[in-house]
């Protein structure tokens, strides 16, 4: 049996070597909090003690699960604990959760194995999953946590069997109690012995139809700490004697600080020092052996350090500064769109999936549908502004406190920037006040490390919201042209697309269309375009950007061919049973129809990401004056199985709300090379009074199928709304933000 390429036999060996030798341990003090609201104070972090990768059991039966994924709202602390507890069979009340210690990676030698550039990458499963993102936590870690729980259970049984002189097969392990007939003992009593036991073969893990805990809506383990202010985020770190830093880097990305006048502010209350940030290209190379993000590169700028953050921030604002904006000082949103539009007339790179002779068919067709679409940059805008605290200790010890999607990168980036050995760096994960792909870059961590290096004191760096949005690596700006030739039956014979987007998004449109619909002739071309605005993954990634285009275009093809948009999709999805099933369910649940009175409309969209097809239907109402109200979203999804239905609903609703902000209100506006709308007054987010009723319908195909849910409903919402707007008003909205369009009707 294979788990992510690791056999069950080698699973324990790998885990053991990464963990320092045992799967079970119990160095943990009794009476630990249910959820440590300050995870960085976990004993493992503070003492540098590796207990093990996965779990420990105390004498009193308390089971502590080490979570290797970061909690950024997706409920992973709860779901990973559920995976393990499912197999271990333990009272849920006895479960405790702590963030795993990042440090063990370095101790396990993974870091040194990567140091040589020619060395092939040696992934330990533990190392790999210390990066949280890409909707991978369930897909990558579920079997590992189940295996860890099952292994622990069997070792406990073996320990009891040996003590009682019976066969392991005859020992029962249930809710923290081991038993054989009248003989009983707790997990806690046998944990120490169990830790010594090596199984000749690891047990099989449960199939979904055997689950009793997974699949239930257990309350989130982090909720109690999040309703009383005790849940601690990176920004809440307070260290003895620490100072505070506020920072500003070149407002035009790629520009540089020319001069500053510290003397003008040095007498302001509390001001300690100005710290110039000077990029060092040698520090960040795209193919560095640790694979940390090139986005972590230091940007030219200036920080002010003071005895309080507010004093640092106001002093920074008052300090005279001159910037060399560089060659992009004249760029603005419109000129940047114009550059991309021009590329729609030039051949791009052909996508791998192209089939048939689409361009010839299109050129010869007299029944052509064509449309251009555009979308601006969008920023992650996590509610917790970017921040990082660096603690400087004795003997060169460096402590890093941050909510990071990549704590292992945080460790190595800090070591790199401060010029210390990674063994001296300790990372203390915290709750993330939003991640969405933003907290995977370590740029704030490198910046804090550099400031601490120069100041020589423990320092807390907090970005203003203006810096947070203005210096955000964005979701790509994109333009695309889609054309299709319809046959006599009104179905597309051929589709031709050309799209222009930044690196990680460049192939997104082609990928979505080619993979989804059975159109016989397809030709997709893409231009990989880069401006001075940095870009990176944003929740929903390619789907969140391109579904708006592809799924509106599918409606346009359907209507041009005289077909109902939903039935049209069902036909084109002939080879995709799971997508068809989701769409059929949507038809029933939403009551989708195209004949509502003017001013009302329903629109649909469907796509699949991370093995989870999701279809949505938006119901909108638009006043004659053009005021849009999204009244309802019905969504149907199939992730195969689910671990916690309540958390699934949170995630799927969250996807839709996240993207509604961009689709309705968003759009980063570039003026004079810089982000103009860098706070929530002008970069608007969806508010509760605009929140539609969102009904999440489960259409799970079960079996051994697993998909993700944390960014699988971002893409469909914008095209569903746009398609609904068309039915309500007859107006096609081919760019976002939607609310910039005149939606009035007569």
């Amino acid at each position, binding site marked *: 049996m294979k788990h992510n390429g690791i056999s069950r036999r080698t699973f324990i060996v790998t885990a053991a070597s990464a963990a320092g030798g045992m799967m079970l341990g119990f160095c943990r003090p009794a009476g630990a909090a249910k959820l440590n609201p300050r995870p960085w104070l976990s004993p493992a972090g503070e003492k540098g003690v590796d207990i093990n990768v996965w779990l420990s059991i105390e004498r009193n039966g308390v089971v502590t699960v080490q979570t290797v994924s970061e909690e950024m709202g997706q409920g992973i602390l709860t779901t990973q604990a559920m995976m393990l507890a499912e197999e271990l069979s333990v009272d849920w009340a006895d479960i405790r959760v702590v963030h795993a210690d990042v440090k063990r990676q370095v101790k396990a030698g993974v870091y040194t194995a990567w140091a040589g550039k020619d060395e092939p990458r040696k992934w330990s499963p533990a190392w790999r999953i210390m990066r949280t993102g890409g909707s991978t936590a369930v897909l990558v870690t579920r079997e590992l946590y189940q295996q860890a729980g099952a292994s622990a259970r069997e070792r406990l049984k073996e320990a009891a069997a040996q003590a009682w002189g019976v066969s392991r097969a005859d020992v029962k392990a249930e809710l923290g109690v081991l038993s054989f007939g009248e003989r009983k003992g707790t997990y806690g009593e046998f944990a120490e012995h169990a830790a010594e036991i090596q199984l000749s073969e690891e047990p099989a893990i449960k199939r979904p139809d055997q689950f009793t805990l997974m699949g239930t809506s257990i309350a989130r383990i982090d909720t109690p700490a999040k309703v009383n202010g005790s849940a601690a*985020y990176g920004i809440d770190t307070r260290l003895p004697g620490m100072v505070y830093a506020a920072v500003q880097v070149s407002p035009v990305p790629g520009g540089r600080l020319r001069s500053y006048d510290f003397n003008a502010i040095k007498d302001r209350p509390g001001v300690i020092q100005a710290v110039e940030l000077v990029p060092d290209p040698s520090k960040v190379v795209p193919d560095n052996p640790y694979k940390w993000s090139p986005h972590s590169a230091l940007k030219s700028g200036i920080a002010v350090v003071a005895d*309080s953050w507010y004093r640092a921030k106001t002093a920074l604002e008052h300090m005279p500064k001159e910037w060399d904006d560089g060659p992009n000082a004249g760029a603005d949103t419109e000129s940047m769109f114009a550059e991309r539009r021009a590329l729609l007339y030039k051949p791009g790179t052909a996508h791998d999936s192209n089939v048939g002779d689409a361009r010839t068919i299109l050129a010869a067709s007299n029944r052509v549908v064509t449309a251009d679409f555009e979308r601006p940059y969008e920023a992650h805008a996590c509610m917790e502004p970017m921040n990082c605290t660096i603690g400087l200790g004795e003997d060169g010890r460096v402590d890093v406190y941050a909510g990071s999607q990549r704590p292992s990168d945080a460790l190595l980036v800090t070591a790199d920037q401060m010029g210390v050995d990674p063994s001296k760096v300790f990372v203390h994960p915290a709750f993330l006040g*939003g991640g969405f792909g933003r907290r995977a870059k370590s740029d704030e961590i490198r910046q804090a490390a550099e400031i601490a290096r120069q100041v020589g004191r423990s320092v807390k760096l907090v970005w203003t919201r203006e810096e947070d949005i203005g210096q955000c690596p964005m979701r790509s700006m994109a333009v695309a042209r889609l054309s299709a030739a319809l046959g006599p039956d009104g179905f597309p014979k051929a589709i031709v697309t050309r799209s222009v987007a930044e690196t990680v998004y460049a192939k997104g449109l082609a990928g979505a269309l080619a993979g989804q619909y059975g159109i016989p002739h397809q030709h997709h071309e893409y231009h990989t375009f880069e401006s001075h605005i940095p870009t990176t993954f944003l929740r929903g990634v390619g789907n969140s950007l391109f579904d708006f285009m592809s799924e509106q275009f599918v409606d346009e093809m359907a209507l041009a061919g005289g077909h109902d948009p939903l039935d049209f999709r069902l036909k084109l999805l002939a080879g995709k049973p799971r997508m068809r099933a989701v769409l059929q369910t949507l038809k029933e649940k939403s009551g989708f129809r195209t004949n509502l009175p003017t001013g009302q409309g329903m629109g649909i969209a469907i796509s699949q990401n991370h093995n989870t097809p999701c279809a949505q239907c938006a119901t909108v109402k638009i006043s004659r004056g053009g005021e849009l109200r999204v009244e309802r979203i019905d969504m149907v999804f199939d992730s195969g199985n689910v671990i916690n239905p309540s958390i699934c609903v949170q995630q799927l609703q969250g996807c839709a709300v996240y993207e509604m902000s961009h689709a309705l209100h968003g759009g980063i506006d570039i003026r004079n090379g810089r982000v103009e709308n860098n706070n929530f007054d002008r970069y608007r987010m969806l508010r*509760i009074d605009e929140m539609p009723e969102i009904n999440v319908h489960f259409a799970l195909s079960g079996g051994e199928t697993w998909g993700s849910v944390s960014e699988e409903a971002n893409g469909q919402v914008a095209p569903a709304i746009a398609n609904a707007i068309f039915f309500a008003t007859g107006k096609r909205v081919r760019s976002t933000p939607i609310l910039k369009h005149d939606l009035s009707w007569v």
Partner: protein
Amino acid sequence: MSMTLNINGTSYAVDVEPETPLLWVIRDTIGLTGTKFGCGMAQCGACTVHIDGQAVKSCSFKVASAVGRQITTIEGLSPDSSHPVQLAWIEVDVPQCGYCQSGQIMAAAALLARSKNPTDREIDDAMAGNLCRCGTYARIREATRRAAQLASAERGLR
């Protein structure tokens, strides 16, 4: 400038510039970190506290104006998470990342203090100043309605 603040029933002597936003005095000077920084311009509501029972965005409220008034932060809403809004938030499992939730809870608590049985429209109006990027709005509505029920039951018991 020296001044005394009453926060959660405790007096704190602080020495800060009078124009310092209350948020930073609460977080950095006093060390109550449950109140969050989000935008610095009263747009997101993460910093919502009560001043004499009213929901106020503390990032845009000068500390000097808070002197002599009763300030309540999330830490002071109840000693044991037993405020009806907190109970409802737990029951409905509202938070995702949780960062905005202190502000959401304080805004909801202020609403229920002035309107015992708010309509859906009143809930939306009262909570529209508090952003949530995770999209917990549906559960915030549900939990606010539930909190009103819990508060009503609590009054009945007294």
